[in-house]
């Protein structure tokens, strides 16, 4: 492969080549910057790119690699960061006028961990305003007239188009799984509390998760291993041990899967249902046991309760700023905060009680399976940029905090990607990754970046 084609490499391929001194971090960066120069005007992935800083770091890491010194598994790998993560010296605007000039003076814990593992922070990717509903300008690499999904719009489109092999996003409703599925890549939301949220601008404290975007499941496992672990600065951070996730994907075999038809089949369009049926047949032929699973009673209220928690907590976070700068918020965000400020406290508490019941009931049902399976979205990416699509297939899993992953599963007649979604037990990311890696192999969608037409 010519050095200028290095943008086609997945994270682990690039990392292996760097560790074997077959590729330098500088050459990888150069290839990615050329790709960005070519596609950015069409796709609008970035809010800002730290070209000079990245070049200096890449040169330094190239010299270290030549001397056989490696900082970690991400040595010399450029990554994109959703513009809600605190990055020292780099503007963090959350896609909003409100934070137009905000430059953090500390790094989010995740940024520190990425840097310690050798990653190069290439820049900040586009987000919907405050990771909520008002869309980013980003376009879908598979068809620029379609949304890439949101809220982590830039991170998904950047990984899909080969501008980067990995990026961070977030998920409060469907902001990682949905854009990853719309853009034909892997999107991974680990368990609530598994990765620190310290230094990430919140939407909703009880629902916010870090999201990972890559083009393979193995790459997602590598990133999780770097990012996971206890952080005393995040009150929700778990102190459960972090297993070696890369080992999980090396021991794969046919899984036992619970198929969730109820609700998901009713809401999915015909093409999505047909794709899922084909995937189930293929997985079954390969040895997977796919059994119908039944949703618990509390699922009926999960979407509504998720919304109540989200808008009430978002309103609480923004209340003070909203008093003086209401009109500086974009319309949907303004409406979300205003409506959230009027939700009765007893309703918020009841929504949290429903969450408690939902977590317990889902965990009991999941005990019988390795994972649940369902489509990642009801339909492929919708046309237009005014909406980021329907998050209803993802919000229940943000609500209960269970780990979930999407992998691409085919193309629609309009050549837009479909994705399947797997949901696992809390803090059992190993099984989720193992099953996802097995499914990825059986489906064989491919890992090359997509070339926008």
């Amino acid at each position, binding site marked *: 492969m010519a050095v200028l084609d290095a943008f086609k490499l997945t994270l682990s391929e690039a990392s292996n080549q760097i560790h074997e001194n077959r590729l330098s971090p500088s050459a990888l960066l150069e290839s990615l910057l050329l790709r960005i120069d070519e596609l950015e005007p069409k796709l609008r992935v970035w809010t800002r790119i730290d070209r000079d800083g990245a070049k200096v770091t890449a040169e330094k890491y190239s010299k270290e690699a030549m001397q056989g010194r490696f900082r970690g598994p991400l040595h010399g790998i450029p990554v994109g960061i959703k513009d809600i993560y605190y990055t020292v010296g780099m503007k963090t605007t959350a896609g909003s006028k409100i934070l137009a000039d905000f430059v953090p003076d500390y790094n989010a814990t995740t940024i520190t961990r990425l840097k310690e593992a050798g990653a190069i922070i290439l820049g900040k990717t586009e987000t919907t305003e405050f990771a909520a509903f008002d869309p980013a300008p980003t376009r879908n690499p598979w068809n620029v007239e379609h949304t890439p999904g949101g809220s982590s719009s830039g991170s998904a489109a950047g990984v899909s188009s080969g501008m980067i092999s990995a990026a961070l996003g977030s998920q409060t409703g469907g902001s990682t799984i949905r854009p990853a599925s719309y853009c034909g890549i892997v999107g991974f939301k680990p*368990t*609530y*509390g598994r990765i620190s949220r310290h230094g990430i601008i919140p939407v909703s404290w*009880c629902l916010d998760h870090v999201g990972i975007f890559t083009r393979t499941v193995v790459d997602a496992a590598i990133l999780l291993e770097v990012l996971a672990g206890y952080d005393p600065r995040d*009150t*929700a951070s*778990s102190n*459960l041990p972090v297993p070696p996730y890369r080992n999980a994907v090396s021991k794969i075999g046919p899984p036992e899967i619970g198929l969730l038809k109820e609700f998901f089949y009713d809401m999915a369009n015909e093409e999505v249902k047909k794709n899922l049926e084909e995937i189930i047949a293929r997985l079954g032929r390969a040895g997977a046991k796919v059994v119908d699973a039944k949703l618990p009673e*509390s699922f*009926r*209220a999960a*979407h*509504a*309760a998720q*919304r*109540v928690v989200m*808008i009430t907590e978002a309103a609480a976070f923004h209340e003070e700023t909203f008093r003086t700068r*209401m009109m500086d918020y974009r*319309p*949907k965000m*303004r*409406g*979300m905060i*205003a*409506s*959230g*400020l*009027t*939700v*009765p406290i007893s*309703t918020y*508490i*009841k*929504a*949290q*009680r*429903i*969450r*408690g*019941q939902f*977590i*317990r009931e889902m*965990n009991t049902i999941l*005990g019988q399976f390795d994972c649940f399976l369902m489509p990642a979205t009801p339909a492929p990416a919708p046309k237009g940029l005014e909406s980021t699509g329907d998050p209803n297939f993802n919000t229940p899993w943000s609500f*209960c*905090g269970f780990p979930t992953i999407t992998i691409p599963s085919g193309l629609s007649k309009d050549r837009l990607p479909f994705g399947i979604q797997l949901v696992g*037990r*809390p*803090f*059992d990311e190993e099984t989720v990754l193992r099953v996802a890696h097995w499914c990825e192999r059986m489906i064989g969608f491919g890992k090359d970046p997509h070339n926008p037409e």
Partner: protein
Amino acid sequence: MAGDLEKEKILNRLLEAATERWDRAEVEKMRPMFEMAADAVWKVEKFAIGPEEEPAYPTTIFYLGAAEKEKRL
């Protein structure tokens, strides 16, 4: 339908609370988001839940995760 009436009542309740804080015309512009909020509030309020059910705390999920791991060890 009874459900629609209840939802309408909740919507009016939320809009009324909003107009105590902001100009009515401004509140009307935000009506679609209030309609979504009212629908969610209605669904949450009408959902029957056991008296023993407490709000979820972060520890809820940690406990489940730890218990699950112990079982499998």
